[in-house]
């Protein structure tokens, strides 16, 4: 049997991701329960309890401590893992900057969920988009298989000696964490071939005492930040390279930084992140059958934000509509703002309009996608509204 057909099982998304994490052979896992992430770490702790996975599993007092434990373990040279969501990610905020600032290649799955208040446990992407500037790479996935594969890829990217940056693999909460899908579970031998053991050059070792986490005054602080900035830019090539290496080993490819669907001749291009890609593809199939030239660009890597790749991929679009599950209150939203900035100094003058939708778990339907496309077509003649809330229930306002 080839890897394409071997090990295909119908499993819950969280189990599939936990299985992928196990295949990465993490030394230390530290996590705190929060819906809808919990099933991932429950599965991992069961794997440890059953002796399937040889990892140190720490149950801690908060998400803040969960990630802090990994600062210590990663500095010791441990391959380190956690997963979280929403309020948990927000509670980690300080530590997120610390992990990236100390160049510790921690990998974390973020089961994207809305932020309170009002309290809401359902999916949107406000949590991770709100943490876009913390120095972590952010990969957004479309389905469970991609979540599995991106988790393995994430360690290879994070631990590359030229990069040494933490990575968040962002997967829509419930939509991907709780769905049962047929998945190719990863083969251990192939994973070991793909991902070498983590052997960082700098570790806490009494034989070679080093100082980690010194303070930097104005004469050096900027250069620390610049090096992180540069590493993120450099990681663009690596993300693409790792995606191709993964394809060679496992036979699956999702695009590196971006992925397109009916993009080549598309006049209206939708740009988005995450699992809504599936719905959009269905809508595009239907609209293509009606003769509408609609295409999709999936942004896989939101950080680093692949400006050049985006300009290239979208150069033939007549109009661009961005759909995202976050809102920058008082501004617009993360992806649309970044995308407009990416085009401002280019020769392309394509109209770009933005939609926030799916907030707090509201469904985004094929009808919604058709509505966005209609709005985009109208915008070709002149933009009426640059940014709007999709499917707003004005009757309860």
């Amino acid at each position, binding site marked *: 049997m080839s890897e394409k057909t071997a090990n295909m099982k119908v499993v819950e998304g969280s189990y599939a991701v936990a299985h992928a994490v196990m295949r990465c052979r993490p*030394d*230390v896992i*530290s996590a705190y329960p929060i819906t809808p992430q919990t099933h991932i770490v429950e599965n991992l702790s069961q794997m440890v309890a059953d002796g399937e996975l040889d990892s*140190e599993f*720490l*149950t*801690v*007092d*908060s998400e*803040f*401590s*969960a990630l*802090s*434990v*990994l*600062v*210590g*373990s*990663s*500095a*010791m*040279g*441990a391959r*380190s893992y956690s997963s979280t969501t929403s309020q948990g990610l927000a509670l980690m905020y*300080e*530590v997120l900057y*610390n992990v990236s600032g*100390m160049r510790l290649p921690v990998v974390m799955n973020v089961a994207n969920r809305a932020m309170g208040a009002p309290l809401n446990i359902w999916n949107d992407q406000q949590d991770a988009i709100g943490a876009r500037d913390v120095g972590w790479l952010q990969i957004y996935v479309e389905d469970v298989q991609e979540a599995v594969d991106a988790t393995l890829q994430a360690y290879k990217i994070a631990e590359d000696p030229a990069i040494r940056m933490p990575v968040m693999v962002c997967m829509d909460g419930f939509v991907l964490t709780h769905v049962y899908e047929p998945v190719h579970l990863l083969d251990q031998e192939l994973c070991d071939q793909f991902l070498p053991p983590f052997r960082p050059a700098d570790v*806490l*070792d*009494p034989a*070679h*005492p*080093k*100082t*980690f*986490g*010194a*303070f*930097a*005054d104005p004469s*050096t602080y900027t250069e620390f930040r610049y090096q992180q900035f540069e590493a993120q830019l450099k990681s663009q090539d690596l993300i693409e390279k790792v995606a191709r290496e993964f394809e060679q080993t496992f036979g699956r490819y999702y695009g590196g930084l971006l992925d397109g669907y009916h993009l080549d001749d598309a006049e209206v291009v939708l740009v988005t992140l995450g699992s809504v890609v599936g719905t959009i593809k269905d809508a595009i199939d239907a609209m293509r059958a009606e003769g509408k030239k609609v295409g999709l660009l999936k942004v896989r890597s939101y950080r680093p934000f692949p400006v050049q790749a985006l300009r290239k991929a979208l150069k033939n679009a007549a109009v661009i509509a961005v759909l995202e599950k976050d809102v920058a209150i008082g501004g617009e939203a993360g992806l649309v703002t970044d995308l407009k900035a990416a085009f401002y100094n280019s020769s392309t003058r394509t109209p770009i309009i933005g939609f926030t939708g799916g907030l707090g778990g509201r469904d985004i339907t094929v009808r919604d996608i058709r509505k966005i496309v209609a709005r985009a077509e109208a915008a070709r003649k002149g933009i009426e509204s640059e940014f709007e809330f999709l499917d707003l229930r004005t009757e309860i306002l």
Partner: protein
Amino acid sequence: MEKSLLAPGHRACAGCAMPTTIKLVLDSAGPNTIVVSPTGCLEVTTTPFPESAWCVPWIHSLFENASAVASGVAVMLKRQKKDTNVIVIGGDGSTFDIGMGSNSGMFERGHKVLYVCYDNEAYMNTGVQRSGSTPFCVHTTTTPSGSQSQGNPRPKKDMPAIALAHRVPYVATASVAYPVDLRKKVKKALQVDGPSYIQVNAPCITGWTFDAGTMIELARLAVETGLWPLLEYENGELTSVKKIRMQKPAAEYLKLQGRYKHLFKKAGCAGVLDQIQAMADANIAKYNLVD
């Protein structure tokens, strides 16, 4: 004498008890040690990049997570089957207040980590603000004395009792003025297969305001008055106390410090001084400090 594991050239104030305390701790622990420190005076005075005073591996992450970071270090050492000491060295702000959740988690999980708190009884690095460790009636910049105030209105938080409530198998108080006792306690703590906690009285010259040459004398007076009893708990039992030959009046300790000077200048503070004396007397009685 062997070279200290905390190199000279750090930027702590002259007369600060912190570096002396750290040297005693490190030299008792030896070079096979990894130190984790929270944000604070210790971190900023010893690690201005690209310099470092640390001759052992040292890591600082944040103000409130040193115990969690140390947990990560300790589990990896365990995984590697290495017998290396893990010591958290932090001030009272991170220990008593902002790091409490992280400390509680580390204690409760039972990691083999020695936590040393150099306790100077306020947030000194930010300019002498009150912490949960600040004693009764101390003047700080956020509990100033004034016409309506005699300084900090509450007594010091009992952190050793909190450690004991977590069943931390070794808990002790110590003082920079009693180096033999401190070294002995560090060595003992490092033998424990689990967490341990040592709280060291460490006067701060800028926060307490005293003459630099009197730092050790001041710390000794804290013990001799009964205000800072030197205690040792093993597996939850009080196993040793440092006896006092002759109890000194609390006022003798207080009057040497700027942080208490309002008590001697303002009218109507006699009652407060009596209350502080009563606290010292209660310690003497409770721990049977005077034979």
